[in-house]
């Protein structure tokens, strides 16, 4: 039945090689959620405003709702499912728990991954840098203060692990 233009996608998702024959128009979010069952990536605004669908491509944050799966050919994609290693939470995840930086949890995967992208390039951000970087990720539950605290704590925690 499928007569639409397709292509063969070769990529790496959460460290694992993935090959798939998919329609060219497939959005990354739908590839992750519907083809791979990685439903941790959430759709909300569907137009790159809210950040719920954030995943990292080669460490950089993108809105998976508005990029084609085609774009991750031969790249490394990190989704929320790939962050904890062997059941051990990543320090950012632990910081979100410690600071109550989540409530309903719907923005959380995007928020955690955006935080990782921030701390990767700026390990010790000040409050205004945190707010500026994360102002593109919407949360309707927490009022953001606990998320700000979680990012601060994650930054400290990662610094401690380094030393």
């Amino acid at each position: 039945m499928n007569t639409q233009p397709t292509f063969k996608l070769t990529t790496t998702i959460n460290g694992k090689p993935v090959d798939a024959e998919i329609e060219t128009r497939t959005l990354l979010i739908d590839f992750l959620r519907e083809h791979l069952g990685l439903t941790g990536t959430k759709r909300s605004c569907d137009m790159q405003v809210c950040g719920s669908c954030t995943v990292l491509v080669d460490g950089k944050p993108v809105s998976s709702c508005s990029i084609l799966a085609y774009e991750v050919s031969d790249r490394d994609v990190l989704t929320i499912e790939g962050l904890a290693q062997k059941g051990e939470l990543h320090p950012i995840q632990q910081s979100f728990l410690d600071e109550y930086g989540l409530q309903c949890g719907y923005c959380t995967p995007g928020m955690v991954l955006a935080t990782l992208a921030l701390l990767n390039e700026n390990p010790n951000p000040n409050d205004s840098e945190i707010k500026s970087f994360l102002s593109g990720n919407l949360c309707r539950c927490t009022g953001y203060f606990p998320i700000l605290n979680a990012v601060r704590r994650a930054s400290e925690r990662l610094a401690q692990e380094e030393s």
Partner: protein
Amino acid sequence: MLKPFVIHEPRTPQQASELLNEYGWDATVYAGGTELLVVMKEGLASYAHLINIKTISDIHTIHLTDNDAALRIGAAVTHRAIETSSMIAAHAPLLIEMERSLANVRVRTMGTLAGNLCFAEPHSDPAAVCMAWPGASFELTSTDGVRQVLPDEFFIDLFMTARQENEIMTAIHLPLLPPGMGSAYHKFVLLERPSVSVAAFVSVAGTTIKSAHIAVGSVGPVPYRATAAENMLLGQTPGDEPYRAAAEAAASAADPVGDLYGSVEYKRQLIRVLTRQALQQASERAMGVERL
């Protein structure tokens, strides 16, 4: 929901242009996709052929050109690459200020400066900045050749530019600012895109304003140059009074419409405020050591 399409991967601008010639209205240029895919998802546009210009090899870099007097930013360079470029930081730091506040980091990661300009969304940040940038030009390439187009010829109407159907923008040329020139970009943002934005470039010699370039964005279909305001400033001593007068002139030159971003009256007020602030900062920078 996206309609089906195929993606073409040209290796040269000429190949891209050939594909555009071949498919005509059924094809469009695809780079970051940040604007394009959203309108296609909304069903506002539909193309059976996307010409992915990211596969063209020599449009991915930022480098100095014209004997180091200008920057050439390749069409596939993303906002984020500009924002984090040491070359840009050294030679055109205003672009970094503009890029830092453009949309959000995800859009900047995927989206390209050239794509933003070609899309010609009326609330574009780069459009306003380029419109005011002294000597800025856009390089358009097709099978017919290469041409340079000035911003005020390029932006024709909302979502409409001077780019021909078979052309792709291959680069943005931005001359480095001469000594004694300062720049600033101020905007007021309430919704996702700016309500009003103002870019100003001012050069000062001694205590006299030698030139002023002011562009106002987001209030009309395309950014406009506030030429009356610019002319008023020539020969003046930098200061609050001439800036207020110029800001008033910039505001009267606007022809805004009332919409979600504000009423006509309020938009004029924002133009007034932002123009004054931008002129103030640009001239301070012109007179300071900072070449921004």
